[in-house]
């Protein structure tokens, strides 16, 4: 594993940074929030990103993708994360897209992935439930046999970008009890299916998410992604990839929050001197710098380990998420504190970073969850 960017990767990172700066200022996120935008992101911008090839990064050339890996995708997510861009990489390319890529049959992939890569079609993954917290095996939604297929009943929460999705992938229990590892199956449900109802949720980070109600939704054999009863393992692999993507977003947004705070420390004067000259603030800034650098290493390593399917890939994913969670909260808290009163106002953008940091921390497992997972994977 080489922890250094290739020239191509450096170019990609630079392109994304320029794009994000010009096309996706934080004021755009504010407008989407304040206008209660029904999509929660810009379809036009998404198509542009697809045209730039970013949406297709982790998909094979056969469906129009670039056949690259997380090593490249994290650069896109980091760059967009700097400006808190809400476009559906996490929900569509990672959660939904990777589920199709890792679990879908050739026919399913052929049907959906090209449209996804083109930026004209959206997929979302509904796996989280009220009582599941961070446990992917905790699935109460049931799929009972009905005719030649299944009948699904249950409720999913905080399904990212479900409202704009053409296809919603849903985990349901085809056998076993609520917390059993086996017996989970992933179903593909079309937008508008009978018995499917969505309700838009409003999270603190104003990212688009919905409640998904399944009230007797029917699914056939062809609607299963992967194998019946083996959705648990598939979900773990998919969510690990999404976690790396989320970590990259976190890395981007914590870097940006930190840099904005540094700028503020240099400009803002109190008692006749820049507040950045106060030693305790300097030392706290230096500590944050260190934490961010460690996160950068961890994210790079996790992406490469997953790409190469290394033995300790899962451990490195947990390493990245545990450290990014703690660092993101530290940096966000310090950023607001160092901005003082204006940092507390909704008018200032730094608060958006605080909210996003918390939402990211509490997605895919918080730091304690991933330390526990690290210890479990290390067999102690």
């Amino acid at each position, binding site marked *: 594993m080489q922890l250094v960017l290739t020239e191509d990767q450096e170019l990609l990172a630079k392109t994304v940074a320029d794009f994000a700066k010009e096309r996706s200022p934080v004021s755009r996120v504010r407008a989407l929030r304040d206008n209660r935008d029904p999509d929660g992101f810009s379809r036009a911008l998404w198509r542009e990103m697809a045209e730039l090839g970013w949406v297709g990064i982790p998909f094979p050339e056969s469906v129009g993708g670039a056949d690259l890996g997380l090593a490249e995708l994290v650069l896109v997510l980091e760059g967009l994360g700097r400006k808190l861009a809400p476009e559906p990489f996490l929900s569509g390319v990672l959660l939904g897209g990777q589920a199709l890529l890792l679990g879908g049959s050739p026919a399913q992939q052929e049907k959906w992935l090209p449209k996804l890569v083109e930026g004209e079609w959206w997929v979302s993954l509904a796996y989280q439930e009220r009582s599941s*917290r*961070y446990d992917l095996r905790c699935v109460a939604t049931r799929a009972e046999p009905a005719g030649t297929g299944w009948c699904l009943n249950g409720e999913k929460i905080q399904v990212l970008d479900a409202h704009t999705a053409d296809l919603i992938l849903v985990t349901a229990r085809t056998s076993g009890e609520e917390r059993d590892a086996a017996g989970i199956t992933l179903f593909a449900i079309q937008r508008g299916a009978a018995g499917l109802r969505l309700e838009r949720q409003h999270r603190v980070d104003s990212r688009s998410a919905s*409640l998904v109600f399944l009230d007797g939704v029917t699914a056939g054999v062809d609607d299963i992604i992967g194998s019946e009863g083996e959705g648990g393992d598939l979900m773990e692999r998919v969510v690990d990839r999404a976690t790396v993507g989320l970590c990259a977003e976190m890395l981007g947004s914590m870097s940006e929050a930190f840099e904005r705070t540094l700028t503020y420390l240099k400009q803002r004067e109190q008692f006749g001197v820049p507040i950045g000259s106060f030693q*305790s*603030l300097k030392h706290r800034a230096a500590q944050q710098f260190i934490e961010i650098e460690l996160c950068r290493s961890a994210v790079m390593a996790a992406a490469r380990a997953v790409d190469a399917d290394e033995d300790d890939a899962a451990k490195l994913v947990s390493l990245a998420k545990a450290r990014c969670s703690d660092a993101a909260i530290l940096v966000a808290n310090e950023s607001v*504190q160092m901005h*003082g009163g204006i940092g*507390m106002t909704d008018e200032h953008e730094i608060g958006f970073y605080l909210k996003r940091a918390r939402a990211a921390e509490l997605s895919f497992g918080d730091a*304690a969850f991933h330390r526990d997972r690290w210890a479990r994977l290390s067999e102690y």
Partner: protein
Amino acid sequence: MADLETFRTQTQGWLEVNAPKSLAGLPLAPDGGNWGGRRAHFDPPEMKPWLERMAERGWTAPTWPREYGGGGLETDQAKVLREELSRLRMPSPLTGFGLTMIGPTLLRYGNEEQKREHIPKICRGEIRWCQGYSEPGAGSDLASLQTRAERDGDDFIVTGTKVWTSYADLSDWIFVLVRTDPRAKKQEGITFLLIDMDAPGVSVSPILLISGKSPFSETRFEQVRVPVRNVIGEIDGGWTVAKALLGHERSMIADAFGGGAGQRKGRGGSPLADLARRYLGNGSGRLNDAVLRDEIARCELDERAFHLTVQRARDAAKAGHQPGAESSLFKVYATELNKRRTELAVRIAGPQGLGWEGPGFEAEEIDRTRQWLRARGNSIEGGTSEIQLNIIAKRVLGLPD
């Protein structure tokens, strides 16, 4: 002593007749009682006669001089009055910055005319006051204020902006610091002024916080004409007045964090543990997540140790000792602890800790989210944690500049 018992009996008699029974034990609104003012809102309506009767006796400001509408009571008499009100569980008839901030300042620094004009109205709850100290870009460095007042005959013409003016939208008058001599050194050339909010050129806009709505406003002054007789203390000598008021405010905040917290929290209950039980369950009598359990215990220990420290300060004061060094930690510790506590509560709730509005989130989940966000400001307002630590290092520990 005999006199005091007489006073108690008389007070009991008077309250028996005059205190509206319907108000007893009334849970006060979140913003804590009746604030009076031109647009006073009496809820429930019995608050109005209660205020009027108490004001008539001067008991809205029991220890202030009778000549300005106060009660003229001695300290021990005022204590008896508090005890009797507390015994009957009567709400305070009036609260606000008039009674707590500008009133005491006027009594100390105002001239006779100013006292006669403003104090009776404060005592009767006719005028609601707000405070205009902070400015955009000033922060902890209060003396760097930019709002200027230029002399024009018997008036000053005031132009500038004040921020964090709590309840400015509901207030009638504001006390502000303005710069009257721009050439003087920073803390000189500042004047303490009283301004009628109805004066032409005063405008108020609300400040939205990261946690949502807030009582804070931004108050703008555009060429506002203010009579020179509204200066408290000397022209260019307002910093002295401001410091006294600020000291008063800081001790109030410390009291609020110390006293309030100390009173509010007894020994019983573990709200965080209850929360964790709900979100995580507990097998065999223990919370399922041992790591969160440890964090909850840590938070509770810190809270208890803090409350014991508040009690220690209070017990020492009761025993007649000078305030000890320990009171210097109240503000910084209470606010940092509150930040940790509200963060921990959100983390316990997990993904359900991300609610901003329904659906899919319970009202109490949404409250928790907003409390966490609001708490971030605790360590900024009323003197940042950094300023508090500076003060401890300098005044308590004697470390050099």
